[in-house]
């Protein structure tokens, strides 16, 4: 038992409890916010210290503290940090539950970290539920009709997804007799290659698990909750869902599929993800075109982005077996996903922070109300434009490098057809992203009022935009980190 490797998660949980307790005695909101930020900082610092140690297991092989887990610990700590900074103005909408808001974000962040670290089906499920339950409450926190409705919708659909996931896990456990990912892998190796035909229950288990996780990453056909929940939830939580929750889903998919079901199965699930990727990209992008509500638009866009990331998963699964290069290809495909997630997180958070600032003032989420933002608040409009350009994937923004990186690995694995579909989808996406840009810069504003914003969201937005540009121009450093993290995972 080595508790020291568990400090980031403990720090977050402790901070969350402290925040709730403080709320009873302290009236100043700023204290609560500061405490939450400090908790995240502590978690981040301890994560950094663990980088490179590569402890593959703790708690009886239930969790790992390898570089992959640490990468995501840092990732989620950063996301939550930026999110809390960005919530400064927005949180005034929540009359009563401000402390709970911070505490729930901290709890779900801890859950996301655990999801990336889980190496046992049981911990996978427990951490997933920790994230889910915090998010249900967060989605409903606005306490109005739309918010409550979306919380309920999210709860019901998510419960079904969890049930499917659990059923899949049960089947996998039934056929292999193990819950530990590594032991599941060993058991499947004992079955021999080409197992799937002789083990239909295992096959169904894998498919069910893919479906359960598919809900988390909002892949088509498990995306139906996305537009409604994104629209009804508090905008900050929409951002959290689209960035944190999705990344956690991908982390756990990578962990489970690349560790437990790698050899002998990877071509099968690789193809599943390739197909999911194609339909997610197409449906996400096409459905985004007619949207008039910016949150729904970004909801569909996040479905499409999940499709691009799944190109990387397909590449990791469908590698062509050509001798010694297999190993390096596997690493690259993994690092591509990690890099894409980081770049997507910065981009989408940046976009949402700008949108939160704007909609806070205008009071509506309709794209037409963004008219003339270029004149009203040029810097804010510029930041949002940069993020949208990055989402399209035009250089020099990070989104381009991420796509280049992930698609290059797909092509190396012979998935040219998938890449062509993906790049054509990027072009389709340009249409609706640019529509927002067009409204902001070329439509006449209805008033000349500036958009007010306090310092903290501005800092968060600045960090995001700087990150988007930095990753677009000198991506080498993060690519190296992603590679190091990717090596520790799987084989």
């Amino acid at each position, binding site marked *: 038992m080595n508790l020291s490797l568990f400090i980031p998660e403990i720090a977050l949980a402790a901070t969350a409890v402290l925040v709730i307790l403080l709320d009873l005695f302290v009236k100043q909101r700023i204290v609560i916010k500061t405490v939450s930020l400090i908790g995240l900082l502590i978690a981040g610092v301890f994560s950094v210290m663990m980088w490179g140690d590569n402890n593959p297991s703790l708690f009886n092989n239930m969790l790992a503290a390898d570089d992959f887990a640490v990468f995501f610990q840092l990732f989620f700590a950063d996301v939550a940090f930026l999110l809390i900074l960005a919530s400064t103005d927005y949180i005034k909408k929540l009359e009563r539950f401000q402390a709970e808001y911070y505490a729930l974000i901290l709890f779900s962040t801890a859950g996301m970290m655990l999801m990336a670290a889980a190496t046992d089906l049981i911990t996978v499920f427990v951490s997933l539920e920790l994230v889910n339950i915090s998010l249900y409450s967060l989605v409903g926190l606005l306490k109005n009709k739309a918010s409550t409705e979306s919380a309920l919708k999210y709860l019901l659909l998510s419960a079904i997804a969890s049930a499917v996931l659990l059923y899949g896990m049960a089947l996998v456990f039934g056929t292999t007799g193990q819950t530990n990912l590594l032991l599941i892998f060993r058991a499947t190796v004992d079955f021999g290659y080409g197992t799937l035909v002789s083990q239909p229950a295992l096959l169904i288990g894998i498919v069910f698990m893919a479906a359960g996780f598919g809900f988390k990453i909002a892949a088509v056909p498990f995306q139906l909750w996305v537009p409604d929940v994104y629209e009804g939830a508090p905008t900050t939580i929409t951002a959290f869902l689209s960035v944190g929750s999705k990344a956690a889903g991908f982390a756990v998919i990578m962990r489970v599929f690349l560790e437990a079901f790698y050899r002998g199965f990877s071509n099968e699930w690789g193809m599943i993800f390739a197909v999911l990727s194609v339909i997610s990209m197409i449906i996400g992008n096409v459905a985004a075109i007619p949207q008039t509500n910016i949150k729904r638009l970004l909801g569909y866009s996040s479905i499409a982005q999940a499709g691009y990331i799944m190109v990387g998963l397909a590449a990791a699964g469908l590698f062509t077996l050509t001798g010694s290069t297999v190993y390096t290809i596997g690493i690259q495909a993994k690092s591509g996903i990690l890099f894409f997630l980081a770049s997507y997180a910065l981009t989408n958070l940046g976009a949402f922070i700008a949108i939160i600032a704007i909609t806070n003032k205008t009071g509506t989420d309709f794209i037409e109300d963004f008219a003339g933002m270029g004149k009203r608040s040029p810097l804010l409009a510029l930041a949002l434009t940069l993020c949208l350009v990055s989402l399209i994937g*035009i250089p020099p923004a990070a989104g381009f490098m991420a796509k*280049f990186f992930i698609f*290059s690995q797909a*092509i190396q694995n012979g998935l*040219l057809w998938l*890449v062509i579909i993906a*790049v054509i989808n990027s072009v389709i996406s340009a249409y609706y992203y640019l529509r927002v840009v067009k409204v902001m*810069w070329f439509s006449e504003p209805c008033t000349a009022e500036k958009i007010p914003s306090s310092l903290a969201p501005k800092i968060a937005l600045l960090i995001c935009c700087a990150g988007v540009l930095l990753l677009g121009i000198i991506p080498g450093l993060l690519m*190296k980190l992603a590679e190091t993290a990717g090596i520790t995972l799987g084989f």
Partner: protein
Amino acid sequence: MDFNWLSTILFLPAVGSIVIALLGKREKAVKPLALVFTAIPLIIAAYLFITFDRSAAASGVMQFEENYLWIAPLNAYYHLGVDGLSMPLLLLTAFLGFLAVLISWKVHERPREFFAWLLLLEASIIGVFISLDLLLFFIMWEIEVIPMYFLISVWGSGRKGYSATKYVIYTLFGSAFMLAGILSVYFTTGSLNMLEISRQGLGMVQTAMPAAAIFWLLFIGFAVKLPMFPLHTWLPDAHTAAPTAVSVMLAGVLIKMGGYGMIRLCVSMFPDQAQQFAQLLIILALIGIVYGAAVTLMQTDIKRLIAYSSISHMGYVLLGIFALGQISMTGAALQMFSHGIVTGLLFAVAGLVIHNVEVRDLRKLGGLAKQVPVIAAVFIIAGLASLGLPTTSGFAAEFITFLGSYTSTAVAHLNVYTIIAIIGVVLTAGYILWLIQQAFYGPVRAEYNNVKDADKLEKVYMFVLVAVIFVVGIYPAVLTDVFKLGIEPIAKLIGG
């Protein structure tokens, strides 16, 4: 070379763009600053052009090369250099970039943003011509989209929003394929270095995917930009809507990126595939030449007419490139340069007519030669250069192209194709003469009596462009000697 000349040329306009964007309210400084930040690259480009090594030993050698590791995990380098092919195009871009600032001197609407975007546009086009790393090349290629989108949709006229979006979607569509092509090249060779890839060839291609597929992926990206029939429909819309300086950049250098890319990537990396598909591409070029010219004959909007003529003229470039002979490709390169100057001038003068007369419909114009003699004279010279009158650059370029394509042995039936292409010249004469007659001759219209002629500034840039047309027309060797150095090694790959 000790000093990083090429980086200086590349980054000065980009830095200028940022400086101008940050000027805030001090809008008086915008135009002088833009002038400085485009003049210095022009001076450096001219200096490089003069010191460019023209000896036979320099054939196919990159000069003023800069090479630094950029992204280690991708094996990507910040690699710049110019050879005989890119040097004149670099000079052309710096030259037109400078003139574009002069041409836009009368832009009064949001000048700060306008010049910031214009300079960024220049920087990215320069980047395309001097990048030797595929990733860098592609990034430069894509950056250009954003300034163009803003320039057309804010400062344009007519259906500007529609045209700008159409431009972006077409360009992104083309570059999507190009990206897939570049990625394929990257993984069949493991390198992003253009020189290395052309040198070692794509030996491994058979195992991964057919080289023909990669060839087409790349080709579509360039064909959209050139633009090649049937991917040309964005061009007339973009030109009609764009402000004058942007039309000049678009016709002058932006569409040359397509031709440049075809020679640099498609032909020099895939000589066998180029030869294999040359027949088909030449037929498309011929359709472009004749169809483009025929459609031009029916235009009544002065800018739209010149835009359609570009489609026809870029057909000559495509013909010259895929005739695959050394002379024909040199002709195509010269045609790119000449078309850049001539059409740039045509658009500049047409913009002047539209600005001063405030009418762009040719049916309503007439007799302007009496009222605006200088504009008329320059327009006629540019028009005659466009139809290929001897002593103008247009003649030299077309003559060399046709000579080269007629004599090239790399592709069958070239002599027949060349003769068909020459029909285009006849049609060109038709629409250019009609345009000149319609706008500048015929009965003098009283309502245009008070129209201003070109002022001093406008005379300066018009005369400079006219001078270049004649210099290149009378002594084309000033450029062909340089082009030859870049094209010779590529033509050798074909053996034609």
